[in-house]
Every structure is written in C-alpha cells, then in structure tokens.
C-alpha cells in the first residue's frame, strides 16, 4: 500500500508541475497577479508530495519490503540501517527520485525567499523550474519507476553494491545533486530575466547567493567523491578523470566562472551576455552530467543504467533544454545592453581572463569525455582518452588561471594603475619566484620543475591574496578594522587560500608518492619512504553482512611503531564479489596506505603499499573553498537588502501568496 501511495504522490507532483510550468508563465505575460501567485503554491505542493514519495521509498527500504523491485535489487535484511537509508539513492531509480525531490526543495526555497522580487520575475523562474521538473518526473514515471512491484516478492534482497556501503558515498550523491539541481535556480532566473528583458543589477545580486550555495554543494560533493574513491577503490588515487568525475567537474568549472561573472554583472553591470550564457551552460552541463551517469553510454565505475530507452529519453530532454534556452538567448541577446567600460588593466579584464580559462578547461574536459562517444558514433573505432592527456591539459591552462587568482583581487574595478598593482604584488611575486627556483632547480634530491611551479603558484596565491588584507587595513591597523571587513571578502580570501592548499596537496602527492606492489608472507617486512612495514598476517573476521580477511601491518619509523594498518578483503554474503577495504593511517603531512590484493600460497598475500605525502591537503583545500563560499553567502548585505525590501514592499506581497509559507 505504501509504495502505491508513493507512486500516486509522484503522479500528483507531475500534475502540479504541469500547472507550475504553464499558469504562472501565462500570468506573467498577461500581467495577472493571481495566476503568477499560483507558482508559489504549486512549488510548495510539489515539495510536499515529493517528500511524501521519498518517505514512502525510504519506508520500503527500512522495512525491507522486497515486493518493491528496486528495494529487492538494492537492499538486504542484513544491511545495516544507515546503508538501508542511503540505498534509497544507491541506484538509478532512487537517485532520480532524489534529484527531483531536491529540485522540489530548491523550488520551494525560491518560492519562500523571493518575496522581494517582482512577481512576474519569480513567476517565470518558477515556471522554468516546473518544466525541468516535468521532464524528470516523466522520465521517472515512464522509464524508471522506483515503486514498481515484483511478483512474487523474493524472500531476500540482492544487497546494495558493497562499494556504496561507505559513509562517504552515503553523503556524496545528495551533496552533488544539491549542486547540480541548485544550478537550475541560476538557469531559471537567467531565462526569466531574459524573457522579461531586464538583466539588471537586482537580478545579478539576487542570483549570486543562490548560485554560490549550489556551487558550495558541488564543491563539497566533488571533494567527498574524491575522498571516497581514495578510501574505497583500494588503489590510492584521488582523481581519475573518470567520465563521471568529469561530469561533476564540468558544471563546477562553469559554476566557478559564473559566480565570478555574476560579481562583475552586479557591481559593474558588465558581462551580462556572458553571465547569462554561463548560467545556461552550468545547468546544461549538470544535465549532461546526469545524462552521462544515468544513460550508461560511457564506461565507468558509476554507470548503472544500461537501458537504451533511458539514455535516449535524457538525450532528447537535454537537447530540448539546451536548444530552447539557447533559442531564448538568441532571441533576447541583441537587446541586452553592455555595461560599464573598463581598461586593459582592471579587475574586470582579469576576471574575464579567468572566466575564459575556466571555460576553456571545461570545454577540453568535455572534449575528452565525449570523444569516445563521438568516435564510436562515427565508426572511427573504440577509443579511450588517456589520463595523461587530461593531466597535461589541466597543467597547461590552470597555472595561468592561478596567476590571475592573485592579480584580480589586487586590482580595482574599471582601471588599475600598473605601478600601483606592481607595488601591491611584488612581494608575493618575488617569494613565488624564489620558491619556484628552490624547488624547481636541481639543488636537492627530488626537486623538479613541476614541484617548483606548483609550490610557487601556491605561495603566489597565498601572499597575493593576503596582500589585499594589508591594503584594506592600511589606514587603520586594529582588530576592529579586521572585524569590520565584510564576510564576503573573507569568503573570497578563504576560498582562494583553499585553492592554494589544494595545489600544495596535488603537487606534492603527484611528485613524491611512493608505491609498491609486492608479495608478503606473514612476518615479512619492507621499507617504503623511510617507514618499515611489517606484515603480521591476515585472519578471518566476520562483519554484519560480510566476511573479511583482516590483515595487520605494523609500521615502524626506526624502532618506534607509528601506525597499525588494518586492510581488509571482504566477501559480501549476498553476492560473491570480493571488496578491498584499504587500511589507512591519516596524517597532516602524509598518509600511509595499504590494501590487500589476493591470497597467495601459505598465508602470503599480494599487497599494495603507498606513502602519500600531503594528500589530505587536497580535500582540506576543497573544504576551505566550500567554507569560503558559505562565508560569502552569509554576508550582511544580502540579508539587509532582503529585509529592507520586504519592509518596503509591506504586507501586500505576503497576502497574495496566501500565507502559504
């Protein structure tokens, strides 16, 4: 009964979405306030019914209702409760439900917090979100219904993919989807503003915090995904340029460009065309990401759906979304007026340069990701694009971006005097140059040009951004002055410093990781990067829903024991596949990492040992970047602006919404 209730809730949501996509839009064209207000009610209604549907599916998982096919395929009575809940989005159907539910949440949030905006603007934006919702609901109801029943119901389920039984992956999809779906807000508002013909500072100011929040979620999702693959895949890598990683990285790149370009549009009124285009791209790339992951067209760890009708549905949907939004752009772009002019040396041109570089990187990643599809479709053979290509492309273009990361915050809007810029940044530049020379030239063992470049860039970004703090404090150096700087400024500072931290991590882990594959008998020891690894042997140890071979490796530095690594090889009872669980000793400056390969003769194991210097810095940097985004959103001026405008608008706006909030 409960699953049918969930199914019914989805159908009702679809009806509401149909209303939301049409009535407010018509209202906006005809100037009918009552029709426009419908959008708010349907947005809340959709969210409520989606929550209901999501609750029903969760209930089916928690109670192990195997008469629901999706539950039977992805759960098991022995699965721990926490993973029974995360299994809701562990595969195709449920993750779509999560997608739509989050879209409902974002729409409801837009409906609730947009009272200070002109009603027509909100009505059009909600209508666009309603259209996106229709697409995904139809997709779910027609091709991938999570509530489909299975007769007769099996006594036991197939269990959740063991790879997904990890706290990191339980949280990874919701975060990533919050980011993907959140980009739909910027998308809807860009379309709405374009249709209304009013791309003004108010639009940019209003879009900024929403885009930043979505981008924060995307950042956290990507960071967590990277950490998860390091932990779970058992080969110590943190980024593989896997199509699915690329699928989340491309919207992130476009989103990063977008939040910077929105800043210019808000402050200076420039780049309007470009900002709108980026908003369209960021969301289109999010959809493309969903398409790549869900359709199974690409070979990947994550690709679960291999039903061609699903792939075609998303492809058609994607074409409609991209096509129609570009059509609106083509129709309206000629009317968009350019903003203030700026000089060659100015914050605008540095931000523009950064934007172009981000887009170039996104396009290259797109090329590398789609090339196998294109080659296959044209009958040129089956190819894959090598990991080194992505690395090389990234290391050619990203350093230029990082140079701009130090220049832009030190420049003024509109016009920057060259001498003044030089005075502000020369210390950072000199320090970076010295760092680069020390680590780049062969003064000591292990120095390499790439290490020099990476560390120099990190020093440059750090010092150049800190220089802006000094500049802001030049009139009054006191704690008070430090505290009076706006939160958004500190957000920028933190995010930029986070980038430097991540660069240090990436550089050092790429240059100085040590890896060893070897055979170890119980009692054997081996030395790696100054640490002695001693294998005690592996013994069987049962888990809740698996049986593990539990290995113990003691690690010594000199005579002192510094860590005990406990890697496991697990065999899940419900399926025959084995799973590697790495044993990791976490450290600020290095990780020690061991994973078991296969049992060889007489208690010996093939084994993989790693020394990973500064690998934590990569994710630490990601977290800093995300925190920077949060700090920027927390800035007082957004809240003050909202409060002021709501007060000015009076109760009238609230009344039309009928007290729905």
């Amino acid at each position, binding site marked *: 009964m409960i699953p049918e209730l969930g199914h019914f809730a989805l159908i009702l949501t679809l009806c509401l979405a149909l209303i939301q996509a049409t009535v407010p839009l018509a209202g906006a064209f005809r100037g009918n306030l009552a029709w426009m207000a419908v959008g708010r009610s349907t947005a809340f209604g959709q969210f409520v019914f989606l929550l209901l549907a999501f609750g029903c599916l969760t209930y089916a998982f928690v109670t192990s209702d195997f008469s629901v096919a999706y539950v039977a395929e992805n759960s098991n009575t022995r699965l721990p409760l926490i993973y029974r809940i995360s299994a809701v989005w562990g595969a195709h159907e449920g993750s779509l439900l999560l997608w739509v539910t989050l879209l409902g949440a974002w729409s409801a949030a837009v409906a609730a917090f947009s009272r200070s905006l002109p009603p027509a603007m909100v009505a059009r934006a909600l209508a666009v979100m309603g259209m996106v919702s229709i697409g995904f609901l139809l997709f779910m109801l027609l091709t991938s219904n999570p509530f489909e029943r299975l007769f007769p119901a099996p006594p036991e389920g197939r269990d959740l*993919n063991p*790879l997904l039984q990890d706290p990191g992956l339980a949280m990874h999809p919701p975060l990533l989807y919050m980011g993907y779906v959140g980009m739909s807000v910027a998308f809807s508002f860009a379309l709405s503003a374009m249709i209304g013909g009013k791309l003004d500072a108010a639009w940019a100011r209003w879009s900024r915090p929403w885009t930043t929040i979505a981008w924060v979620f995307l950042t956290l999702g990507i960071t967590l995904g990277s950490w998860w693959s390091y932990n779970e895949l*058992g080969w110590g890598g943190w980024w593989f340029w896997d199509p699915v990683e690329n699928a989340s990285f491309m919207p992130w790149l476009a989103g990063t460009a977008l939040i910077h370009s929105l800043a210019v549009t808000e402050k200076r009124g420039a780049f309007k065309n470009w900002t709108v285009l980026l908003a369209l791209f960021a969301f289109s790339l999010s959809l493309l990401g969903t398409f790549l992951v869900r359709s199974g067209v690409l*070979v990947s*760890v994550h690709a*679960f759906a291999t039903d061609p009708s699903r792939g075609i549905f998303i492809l058609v949907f994607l074409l409609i979304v991209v096509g129609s939004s570009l059509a609106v752009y083509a129709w309206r772009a000629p009317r968009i007026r350019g903003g203030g*002019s700026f*000089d*060659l040396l100015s914050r605008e*041109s540095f931000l*523009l*340069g950064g934007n*172009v570089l981000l887009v*170039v990187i996104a396009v*290259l990643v797109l*090329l*590398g990701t789609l*090339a196998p599809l294109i080659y296959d479709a044209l009958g040129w*053979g*089956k*190819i*894959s*694009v*090598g990991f*080194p*290509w992505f690395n*090389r*492309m990234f290391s*050619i*273009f990203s350093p*230029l971006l990082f140079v701009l990361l130090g220049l832009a915050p030190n420049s003024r809007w509109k016009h920057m005097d060259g001498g003044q810029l030089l005075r502000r940044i020369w210390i950072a530049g000199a320090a970076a140059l010295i760092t680069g020379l020390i680590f780049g030239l062969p003064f000591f063992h292990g120095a390499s040009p790439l290490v020099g470049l990476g560390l120099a860039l990190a020093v440059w970004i750090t010092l150049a951004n800190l220089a802006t703090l000094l500049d802001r404090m030049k009139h009054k150096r006191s704690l008070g002055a430090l505290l009076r700087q706006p939160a958004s400024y500190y957000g920028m500072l933190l995010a930029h410093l986070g980038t430097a931290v991540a660069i240090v991590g990436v550089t050092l882990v790429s240059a100085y990781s040590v890896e060893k*594959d*070897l*055979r170890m008998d119980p009692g054997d020891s081996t030395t790696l990067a100054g640490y002695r690894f001693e294998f005690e042997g592996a013994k069987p140890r049962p888990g809740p829903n698996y049986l593990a071979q539990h290995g113990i490796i003691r690690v010594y530095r000199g005579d002192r024991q510094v860590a005990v690594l406990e890697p496991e090889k697990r065999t899940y009872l419900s*399926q*025959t*596949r*084995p*799973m*590697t669980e790495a044993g990791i000793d976490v450290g600020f400056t290095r990780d020690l990492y061991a*994973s078991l*390969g*296969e049992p*060889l003769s007489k208690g010996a194991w*093939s*084994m*993989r040992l790693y020394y990973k210097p500064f690998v934590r810095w990569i994710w630490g940097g990601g977290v800093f970047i995300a925190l920077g985004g949060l700090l920027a959103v927390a800035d007082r001026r957004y809240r003050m602006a909202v409060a002021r405008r709501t007060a000015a608008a009076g109760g009238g706006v609230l009344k039309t919404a009928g007290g729905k909030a």
Partner: protein
Amino acid sequence: MTPRRKKRLILVGLLLAGVTTGTALALYSFKQNLMFFYPPSDVVAGKAPAHHAFRLGGLVEKGSLKRRPNGLTVEFDVTDLKKSVHVQYTGILPDLFREGQGIVAKGRLGPGGIFIADEVLAKHDEKYMPPEVAASLKKAHAKGVTTAETQTP
C-alpha cells in the same frame, strides 16, 4: 580608432591568440593520447599498432591463469571466442578478475605477440561486461562462433 577601442582590440586579440594556441596544442596532444580498443581477433590479424599502447578486451580464458612463483607476475589468455592473445601482467589484479570474466587490459605488444599489460580493469559489478567486450563478443557470435561459454552479459 579611439584609445578605448584599441585597448579592447588588444584584449580580444590576446584572448584569441591564447585560446587558439591552447586549442591547437590540445588537439595535437589529443591525437597522441588516444588509445584504441582491439579484440583479440584483430590483434592476431595484425591490425593492432605494434609500437603504440592500446587496450585489449575479452574474456579471460578458463584454465589459462598462471601465477609465477615468488612474485606478482601473472599470465593468462584473453579471448573473444575466436582467437586469443597471451597476456602478461605484473601487479595486483582487480577484485573482480577471474577466469571467464570480461576484462580490459591496457598495454602494448611485446616480443612473440605477447601483450604486456600495465593495467588490468574488471568492472565493479559482477553482472557487468565492459561494453566494448560485449560488442566484440556479439560480433564473434554473429559470425557463427558459438560456444557454451557465451553467457549473456
């Protein structure tokens, strides 16, 4: 030309030049980093590149897996049910590697037609068969090669 226009032109010129050089570089390097996929039949027929890395995919032939003592070197045959290629690999095999399973190996041809792999991939789903492997098996199948071993992927 006003000074403002001149500055704009310089900016646009700089951007264009940068993007063009970048793209040219990217495309040139792209061609060199492409890795083609070949089934064993093509490798035996000499269609695979002799001096360039490629990917080989197929099923691990039953009973062909041999492990050398005191090391991590393994040898096995990869087949598309028509022809098979001998593969040598030193390192840790993926969790899902087993005889009869579809795999993809990256590497290059060594002396004597042996494929020296530096990476072996088996996918993280036991029902899963890498699409290229499935497609090449289907092709072999269509040409009238049938064995009991062809389980539906």
